[in-house]
């Protein structure tokens, strides 16, 4: 336990001192702000046009300016943005040890390698949790500021489930990203993987196989495509869990056993 605490402290310090987690989080916080802008455009299309803002895109993206639409936008952004921004953070957490050649300082230690890998995953989870809370909280502030109609406490709780559930599903799919950052010893392989799976997810949703493809599930869960009950089944969660467990097991095994020549 002390070993794990030491590893967690070290990973926490590295994350706090680096610009990457902060910039990635900043990128993600654009979601509620941009969503709020869309709401303003939808509420006052003529005024928006006079200010040079194009309302067609906002209308296509959201439809109406109310709380359900705004929360829907946040959940969708969490599915798509999460896939990329969470992957960026994961690629940094694992890949930086190879890019900075610091991995060799983490291998022959009294602190087991599994504690270091576990601490990295926990820092990722805490970062995602903090970011999700920030986005949801900022969303509440922005929504209230632009005076969106249609608020209810029940809607608020449902939206918490949507946003947090989408974030959890996206987070679960980060373990294969961590594995690829380790196998590829850097950033390129995991980021390439994130882009590939995002594209594949869209294609497979269009083809009607999204519920079976783990990387489509967060977007289906978020309601981006349609009602969740019609699109997501138990096996959708099962394939996400399987992909997640495979990534976790692979990452731990790789750090424990693979030759480290950098």
């Amino acid at each position: 336990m002390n070993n794990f605490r030491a590893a967690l402290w070290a990973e926490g310090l590295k994350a706090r001192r680096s610009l990457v987690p902060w910039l990635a989080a900043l990128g993600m916080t654009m979601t509620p702000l941009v969503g709020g802008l869309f709401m303003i455009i939808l509420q006052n299309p003529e005024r928006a046009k006079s200010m040079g803002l194009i309302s067609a895109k906002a209308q296509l993206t959201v439809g109406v300016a109310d709380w359900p639409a705004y929360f829907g936008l946040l959940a969708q952004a969490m599915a798509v943005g999460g896939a990329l921004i969470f992957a960026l953070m994961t690629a940094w957490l694992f890949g930086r040890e190879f890019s900075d050649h610091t991995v060799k300082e983490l291998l022959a230690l009294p602190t087991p390698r599994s504690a270091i890998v576990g601490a990295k995953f926990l820092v990722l989870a805490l970062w995602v949790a903090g970011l999700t809370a920030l986005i949801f909280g900022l969303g509440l502030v922005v929504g209230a500021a632009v005076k969106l109609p249609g608020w209810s406490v029940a809607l608020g709780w449902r939206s918490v489930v949507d946003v947090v559930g989408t974030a959890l599903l996206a987070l679960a799919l980060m373990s294969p990203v961590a594995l690829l950052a380790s196998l590829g010893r850097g950033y390129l392989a995991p980021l390439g993987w994130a882009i590939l799976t995002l594209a594949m997810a869209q294609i497979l949703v269009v083809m009607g196989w999204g519920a079976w493809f783990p990387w489509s599930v967060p977007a289906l869960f978020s309601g981006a495509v349609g009602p969740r009950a019609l699109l997501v089944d138990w096996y959708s969660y099962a394939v996400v869990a399987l992909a997640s467990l495979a990534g976790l097991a692979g990452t731990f095994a790789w750090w424990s056993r693979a030759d480290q020549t950098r």
Partner: protein
Amino acid sequence: MTIAIETQGLCKRYGDVVAVDTVNLRVDAGEIYGFVGLNGAGKTTTIRALLGMIRPSAGRVMLLGEPVGPRGRGPWRRVGHLVEQPAAYPELTVRENLEVARRLHAVANPGATDRVIDRFGLAPYAGRRAGVLSTGNRQRLGLARALLHEPELLLLDEPTNGLDPAGVVEIRELLQTLASERGVTIFMSSHVLAEVDRLATRIGIIHQGRLIEELDTVDIERRRARWLVVDARDRPAAAAALVVAGYAVSGTNAEGAWVLHQPHAVAAPEEVARVLVLAGTPPTRLLVEQDDLEQHFLRLIGAQA
């Protein structure tokens, strides 16, 4: 005597390439073992195998009586290391980098960080980000990290890389003190042979993955060739006088002076001088020369090639 490092039939292959070939090492506690070889000879691969960073294709490794095995198993609380170029987290300060190492090495005493900062002269840079350190100071940081937990065994890959001459002397003296006063075993690889020659109590020469020779201090002295360089104003007359007196003139050196390799000539240059004076060609120069490790190494590598 306790064995600090022991390998039995250590091999590492990458496909068809044999990086380390059946290396049997035995380093006793308190020794300073110099591990020398050309670039790509297998030094770093051997050190990585000793540290469990790569899995041997065959053979086994024991450090301080404990096996080094899969999943990072090994006596790491008692081992310090510096492998190739020392790396540090560039966004962390020198102190924070050492603090990370202190915690991961499970050193309870927070004063350990200050102690190594002082010992390696890093105090002026303690609050500076590691990413902006000079090569020499990064090397000091790497050494500070290796010694932070006061290990019994130090595995150092090119420890004086990037240090200025004063830094080289400082590290040499530090390593000598650690070995002589605290009984720390030091296994260091280097291609700076003069440095190894000064420091090591035993030397292993690795070439093309194979440990081709091991020398202790006595061996080093014994195996070093010695010869007598003789010069005179009339070189042909001097050579003739030496031959008449029973010396075998081996040839000339780069400057054209005669070279004698016979042990009795090397052991008694004054007798050579007497012969030359009596022959009317007194010597202008008499000099006993000796191989250093570098020449011995090059000759050995040449013979292997």
